[in-house]
């Protein structure tokens, strides 16, 4: 085959054209696939009140539910002095945002929600957040608001960049579920100083960060874990030792889903002792090795298991328990994915907390709409807390993610 000497230069041109083509293609692809296309509001005129109570999440639960009106207890004198096993020690983390004086909060335009643009900065791609965005989209459409979504890659570096990019676009409102609670403060400060109102959501940031936000909405992780602990104590008849599979180090559930349970149990069932608490790194294999290690080490002394999540953790625990053919262990978990709901139905999982992902996404958009209409919104608003067990699991099917 005849190779002309020119092929070398030809290839260089090809590489140049290919790269340029790839970049132009991004324009077309870019606009197309994100479900952010703001359909022109089909909603009625701005004045008319929008009824969202009819909206349903895919597990046919009402999308916007009145959260339990939980009031924070009195703040102990100096929480850091209290031992970790006393719930007061975690007061600032648990009740972040309640008693903090807001700073430089913009005034509401009070001219209705219709036509407003909201930018949602998702921390990263995960099935929970796909459902979260669906919920947010439903409410945005109902109010005729334009919701643009940016997705990160679970890294602080990426979210920092996206916050700045969101500010560049000068939206009317930003909704931001932070990648990490403790690191959120400098991001919130930037949005606040740019004069853009924003609502924090889903992950509890630290107390100091809350003074910049209009409001924080999301699950009361500490509260629902206490509920789960009460159910766990009831199922264990307040006796027997247990172990906890912890969340990823660095994220705030790392604390809430460990100490929330442990401190509550110390109060409710003092003679239930925690044998060990280790991170499962949200990985089925690591959880299996961890649980199997506990079963070998503690044998029948280990009566109960608390899991920080219900997908990879449930699968790992199932494998380990099957190998040790132990079916006497009472297992409870947080958050309700499809795998977890199946495990409840099959009886492997005794109970788990209900956390509506779509509701988690819908709530801040709803609150934004109220704010646009000039209503006052509370500093913190929780999602409803429910415990799913074998008998009420069917109400919550099919699972949202």
């Amino acid at each position: 085959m005849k190779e002309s000497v020119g092929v070398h230069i030809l290839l260089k041109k090809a590489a140049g054209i290919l790269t340029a083509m790839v970049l132009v293609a991004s324009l077309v692809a870019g606009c197309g696939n994100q479900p952010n296309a703001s359909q022109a509001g089909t909603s009625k005129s701005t004045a008319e009140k929008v009824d969202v109570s009819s909206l349903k999440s895919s597990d046919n639960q009402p999308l916007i539910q009145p959260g339990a009106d939980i009031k924070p207890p009195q703040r102990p004198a100096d929480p850091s002095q209290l031992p970790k096993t006393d719930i007061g020690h975690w007061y600032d983390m648990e009740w972040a945002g309640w008693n903090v004086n807001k700073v430089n909060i913009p005034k509401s335009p009070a001219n209705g929600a219709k036509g407003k643009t909201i930018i949602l900065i998702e921390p990263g791609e995960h099935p929970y957040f796909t459902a979260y965005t669906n919920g947010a989209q439903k409410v945005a459409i109902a109010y005729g608001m334009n919701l643009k979504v940016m997705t990160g890659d679970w890294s602080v570096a990426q979210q920092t960049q996206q916050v700045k990019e969101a500010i560049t676009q000068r939206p009317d409102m930003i909704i931001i579920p932070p990648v990490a609670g403790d690191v959120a403060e400098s991001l919130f400060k930037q949005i606040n100083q740019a004069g853009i109102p924003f609502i924090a959501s889903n992950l509890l940031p630290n107390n100091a960060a809350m003074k910049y936000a209009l409001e924080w909405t999301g699950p009361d992780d500490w509260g629902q874990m206490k509920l789960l602990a009460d159910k766990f104590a009831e199922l264990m008849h307040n006796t027997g030792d247990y172990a906890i599979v912890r969340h990823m180090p660095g994220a705030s559930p790392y604390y809430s889903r460990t100490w929330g349970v442990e401190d509550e149990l110390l109060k409710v069932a003092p003679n239930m002792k925690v044998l060990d608490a280790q991170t499962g790194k949200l990985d089925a294999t690591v959880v299996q090795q961890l649980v199997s290690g506990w079963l070998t080490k503690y044998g029948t002394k280990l009566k109960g298991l608390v899991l920080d999540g219900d997908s990879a953790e449930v699968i790992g625990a199932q494998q380990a328990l099957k190998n040790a053919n132990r079916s006497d262990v009472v297992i409870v978990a947080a958050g309700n994915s499809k795998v977890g709901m199946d495990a409840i139905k099959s009886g492997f999982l005794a109970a788990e907390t209900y956390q509506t992902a779509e509701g988690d996404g819908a709530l801040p958009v709803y609150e934004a709409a109220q704010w646009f209409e000039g209503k006052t919104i509370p500093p913190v608003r929780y999602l409803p807390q429910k415990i799913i067990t074998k008998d009420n699991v069917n109400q919550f099917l099919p699972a949202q993610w």
Partner: protein
Amino acid sequence: MLKTGRNGKISSMVNRYRIVWLCIITFLVMSIFAPHFFNLYNFTTILETMCLNAVVAIGFTIVIIMGKLDLSIGSNLTLGAMFVIGFEPHFGWTISLLIAVISGGIVGLVNGLLVAKAKIDSFIVTLGTMTIVQGIVYLYANGGALYTKDTGLGGWLQQSFIPLFPPIVLISVIIILVFEGILTFTRYGRGFYILGGNKETAWLAGLKTDQYLIQGFTISGMTAALAGALFAITLNSALPDLGVSSTMQVIAATIIGGASMAGGEGSVVKSMVAVLTLVILYNGLTLLGAGNSIQILFSGLILAVVVLQESFSLYQRNKLRGQRVELLKEFSLKR
């Protein structure tokens, strides 16, 4: 760059400064198409975002020039971030910054010793230290995040006294230019190129090859830790998994920038321009509304195209190696 193409043809000019063309093309495309792109605030954001990976790329490029590989840059970056925030309350910024950079240097030193003295492949050594340092970082704040009360320095770093160049960008660019100067214009710097080009030549020229290896890896550890520390200061906080995604991004950028894995070729400035290109691409795509998946897709495509173009042209050049020009003329005469 201390090297010219033999034939001086445009093609070797284009090839040598390929990354600059790529950067300009990306910038133009994004300025035309991406909304809200063309404004001062966004440009400052782009430059600030570039700093983290560009400073990490300094040390990594030096290691690539030596013909080796350093996978531990992600963990060193996190180490720097955690130590600077962790030690600040006790010692203040300057000393904690020093501690962070020195601890990164120590990890680099260990890498260098294992590669130079124990003669273990650098891919393996740095894979091992990556896991170890990641463990240390988690252990340091027993899994938690760290944050500092004194947010003064962080604010100052991002204050744009000069438009477009806040202090963090100035510091990063200056460090990069200093290293580029050392690598191109000093005898010490040229040693890295000769070591990467041919280890025996360096040894026979009397260069202390083991010293260069150890110093190269130590610099890589220090610049990674410095980058992490500066980033953490702007954030006033640090997380144990801060540097996870940086490792691969820096490797991709350095190769796209023109460094070659075989050693003896690469420049710190070109790696910075490559990081800038990728950041412009990501920024533009985000403003166009494209999700994170498309950004990963594009950085992969660009890396693939660069690797393909380079290996294909090398493949062609080897085919024609040794061709005698006068015979070519004669051959075409006959047809």
